[in-house]
């Protein structure tokens, strides 16, 4: 079967409006917006629990996720993130963008790019737990309901990004 031809991205304002409707719809139906990082956390804690169940349950932070009578799948956001993956997959395939590759700047090796992706991911995973959410659960969700802390968080995300951007500029030349 021939994969679909590549389609352009949506106009950012139209995409943002559509994203806003999804966010609003989630509030109207579920009473909460969207999430991403908590599912990754649950998956990670679940993996740690498989390797070392006792030690994981003994950790005061992890014990909120695992232990007797608790399930990693008791949070609907885990299923929501499964939906994000499927939606991304269908979106990428139907737009002809489903392609196995490592996106990187000119002259940047694959290994270097992956090291940066992991390092940035570690920072974000830590930060998202500290701030009780990421760009989805705090910035978008809390932003829409005008949560004071979420707006402070969002401003700090942009500030942190712009502060560090000059130092990693050559990754994207």
């Amino acid at each position, binding site marked *: 079967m021939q994969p679909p031809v590549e389609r352009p991205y949506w106009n950012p304002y139209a995409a943002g409006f559509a994203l806003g409707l999804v966010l609003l719809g989630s509030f109207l139906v579920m009473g909460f917006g969207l999430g991403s990082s908590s599912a990754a956390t649950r998956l990670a804690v679940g993996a740690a629990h498989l390797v070392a169940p006792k030690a994981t349950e003994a950790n005061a932070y992890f014990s909120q996720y695992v232990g007797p009578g608790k399930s990693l799948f008791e949070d609907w956001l885990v299923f929501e993130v499964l939906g994000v993956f499927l939606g991304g997959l269908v979106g990428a395939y139907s737009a002809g963008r489903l392609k*196995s590759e*490592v996106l990187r700047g000119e002259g940047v090796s694959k290994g270097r790019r992956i090291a940066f992706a992991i390092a940035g991911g570690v920072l974000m*995973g830590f930060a998202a737990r500290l701030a009780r959410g990421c760009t989805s659960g705090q910035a978008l969700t809390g932003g829409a309901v005008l949560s004071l802390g979420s*707006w402070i968080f969002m401003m700090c995300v942009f500030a942190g990004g712009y502060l560090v951007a000059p130092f*990693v500029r050559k990754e994207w030349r």
Partner: protein
Amino acid sequence: MNVLPLYPNDAFGFPTGLLVGTLIGFAFGFVLERAGFGNAKNLAAQFYLTDTRVLKVMFSAIATASAGIGLLSGLGVLDLSALTIPETFIGPHVVGGLLLGAGFIVSAYCPGTGIVAMASGKWDGFWSIVGVMIGSLAFGFAWGPLEGFYRSGAMGSVTIAEVLGVPFPVVAAAVVAMAIGCFVGAERLEAVFAPKAGKVAPHSNARVRHVQFAALGSIAALGLATLALPSPKVAVAAKPIARIGAVELAQRIVADPQGLWIVDLRDPKAAGPERIPGTATLPADTTPAKLAASLPATRTLVAYAQGDLASLPEGFATFPGDVLVLSGGYDAWRSAVLSAPQPPADPTPTLVAQFRMRSALNGYFTGAAAAPPPKLVVRAVAAPAPKKGGGC
């Protein structure tokens, strides 16, 4: 009246919620992909101002959703208080935001867009999610020394509208105005920075932009217009009578004495000197309605008579805070709290725990020493109740 949001209003149960949640996630992932957020280059470009797609999409989404929430709650179809408002913790939000921003530009994804990139076959997206998982675990390992900071600067679920003391739709309209201002500014910056980096500034379709600005402005304006409507809150005034048991009330008095207004509705002469500790009695020259109107709604109002109350006294139904009636009245208080509990004849862990609790309450309210617990015979272990997990 307030039928939305559906799930907190029990329109459907948890299993259906998981399916609906998956569908919402599907739409989220699809739109993120179409917005170009499955590609690290589009995300990194935000921080070099060559393409401010991230800002345009994110602020459009936030402005759309908050203006929509303002409009629907203003019309009285959406219950604002049933929405989950992320709680504010100043220190963790500042530090977490800065660190997440740094991680964002280093990995060129955020957790949500990393998942979409992974779904699009981008291995850098996959590895960024592996990093997020490692970072989550690192946070758990550092939990001991971090816990104090994690809980610092707690302000509860507070919105910017509450801080400013203005209605929600006013702030939502300000968000829309700010977003449009940012878009105009961002397009000017693109025109400066993209050529400097040897790139072409992204083409902006004027028609789409104008339609979107007009749509956002209209929703925000309609939200503001609902403020002129007669207050939709009036229809909510007839509350069903909510009851609290004597033991539960005793527990709440011990745990949080500043959280309750307890009002004795009995005739002071007939009732004698015995009353529930912390009770306000009705002065001779006032009515229950006047008393209720004089109390701030920051606490839960609890009313009791000698026996059960069939209906709320006049004026209590319109109390803006929570109102509870002591089930069984003072008689129930006397038999459940003031008289010493009998040790269970057939001690199971649950019954023994209950006896201990009742005995402690009895001692607290009568000044008597708590009775020694009966010998425990282990029969069955009660399953712990599942706890809801929080998170992003």
